[in-house]
């Protein structure tokens, strides 16, 4: 019996996840600035370096940052998985990812090869540390809950995605000839979006959907089998057995089950996180159906639209909705814990005072409108591209503003607690 593994109180220090969460929207803002600057020409060619930069500002800069921060926070809290020296490792991972992503995307945008070469080193170092830390934590825990099964498979998919990414980057950075780069690119993005991203979101959903709105839990047959099924199909698809249609139906089933559970929620109060999640599930379905239409309907912007539907319509809203639950709670928890042993206590703002609903709502509506205009911009690039970029810029700036305000509130109250501490002693 090992009770040491259950030293559950060890919530990592607030700056461990927060650094990732605060940096991520800045990359989305950079992506929108790039789009604003390049206008309708940006998304015209699927393979241009600008599109690669735009995509990676989201996938590496926004998504991977937040997912790293969230895992470093959630795994200790939910499963007692303790990351030793979390602060040191998270500082290294965060710095390497941030510098690496800036150099990588800058290298593509400004066509500077040395940037790509240096980015290779930073991203490689950051990835190795991230994978080692998460890998030890995820596979050391004996827990066999569906959440961990899904997260472990997502993690393996992350390794595959990053591995393929480094092979492909060798082509850009060092002119190393590689076998069939188009095929490898398809593998890279499919493992990244379906294997890593979808499986991680699904795994986290098992935990947070029932938690946030008090819904029934996901049916056991579903939560036990979904991730292994998806992972198996991805492997089949990789070696040339075309089963991806099943994937489409699995993704739709996840979205429908989630929407149904949320419909049965006990908590019927207005909730921005719920809005973001419903938005995300709706567009996961649209994105999946759109994929199916590819069998009989082709047009030049098809791949770009598929990416926007999946990332912009599904991944981004789900992630943003989660941030609005996790960050205020973490701030409240750390402030509460900071004055545990005091007799005289400062009143700590509740979660709704840390990020007010009004500002969350503004952000949600700007996100929604900017996304719809983004879809229009694919059909009418000349008229809508810059408007879409501008609205997206406002939307991600609102996210960053809300997160910075929350951090400022934390620092203010924390200072008051420290001052109080002097008098208590």
């Amino acid at each position: 019996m090992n009770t040491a593994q259950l030293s559950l109180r060890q919530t990592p220090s607030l700056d461990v996840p927060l650094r990732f969460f605060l940096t991520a929207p800045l990359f989305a803002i950079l992506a929108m600035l790039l789009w604003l600057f390049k206008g309708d020409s940006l998304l015209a060619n699927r393979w241009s370096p600008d599109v690669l930069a735009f995509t990676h500002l989201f996938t590496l800069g926004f998504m991977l940052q937040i997912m790293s921060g969230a895992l470093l926070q959630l795994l200790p809290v939910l499963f007692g998985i303790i990351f030793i020296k979390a602060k040191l490792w998270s500082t290294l991972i965060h710095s390497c990812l941030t510098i690496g992503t800036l150099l990588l995307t800058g290298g593509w945008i400004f066509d500077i090869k040395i940037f790509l070469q240096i980015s290779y080193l930073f991203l490689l170092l950051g990835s190795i540390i991230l994978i080692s830390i998460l890998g030890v934590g995820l596979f050391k825990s004996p827990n066999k809950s569906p959440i961990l099964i899904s997260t472990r498979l997502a993690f393996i998919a992350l390794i595959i995605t990053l591995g393929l990414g480094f092979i492909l980057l060798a082509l850009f950075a060092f002119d190393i000839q590689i076998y069939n780069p188009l095929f490898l690119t398809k593998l890279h993005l499919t493992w990244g979006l379906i294997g890593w991203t979808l499986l991680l979101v699904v795994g986290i959903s098992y935990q947070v959907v029932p938690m946030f709105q008090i819904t029934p839990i996901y049916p056991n047959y579903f939560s036990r089998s979904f991730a292994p099924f998806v992972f198996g199909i991805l492997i089949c698809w990789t070696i040339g057995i075309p089963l991806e249609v099943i994937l489409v139906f699995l993704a739709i089933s996840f979205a429908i089950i989630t929407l149904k559970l949320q419909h049965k929620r006990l908590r019927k109060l207005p909730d921005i996180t719920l809005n973001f999640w419903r938005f995300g599930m709706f567009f996961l379905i649209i994105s999946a159906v759109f994929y199916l239409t590819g069998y009989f309907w082709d047009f030049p912007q098809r791949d770009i639209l598929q990416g926007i539907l999946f990332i912009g319509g599904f991944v981004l809203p789900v992630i943003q909705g989660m941030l609005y639950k996790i960050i205020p709670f973490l701030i409240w928890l750390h402030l509460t814990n900071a004055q545990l042993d005091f007799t005289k206590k400062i009143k700590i703002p509740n979660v709704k005072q840390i990020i007010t609903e009004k500002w969350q709502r503004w952000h949600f509506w700007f996100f929604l409108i900017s996304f719809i205009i983004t879809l229009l911009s694919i059909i009418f690039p000349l008229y809508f591209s810059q408007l879409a970029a501008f609205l997206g810029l406002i939307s991600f700036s609102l996210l960053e503003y809300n997160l910075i305000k929350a951090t400022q509130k934390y620092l203010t109250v924390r200072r008051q607690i420290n001052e109080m501490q002097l008098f208590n002693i």
Partner: protein
Amino acid sequence: METITALLTDQHNICDVLFAQTEQAVAAQDWALATAHFNAFHSATADHFNREEQVLFPAFESFTGNSQGPTSVMRFEHTQMRELFDELKNALNQQDSDEYLGLSENFLMLIRQHNAKEEQILYPMTDRILNHQRAELLDHLK
């Protein structure tokens, strides 16, 4: 055969229902109903905490010989939630729905992650290691 995990998870679910009903009544500013629901919610949760602290945790601790492990964390979180109950009660008495709903959001996050740890780690472990005295424990936990 009934398990500790199933019984105590059911108790969590009952508390969740009462929690949501209270919130709903507060949001509707129906203070008489809110107070009635709150009292039911408070007493169901307090009873559950007490049974765990008086029956389950001591049994776990005496078997493992460790009172500084997971159970100490659970006790600590109970204390945090009891403090939040006091604040919730104040907000209710002052009929301050904004304050109540803000605090209840805190409460929900705290109790749901607490429950998750119990349901995913502590209860199954207790079922396993205290299998020989399960029937007796179940009697006291009901």
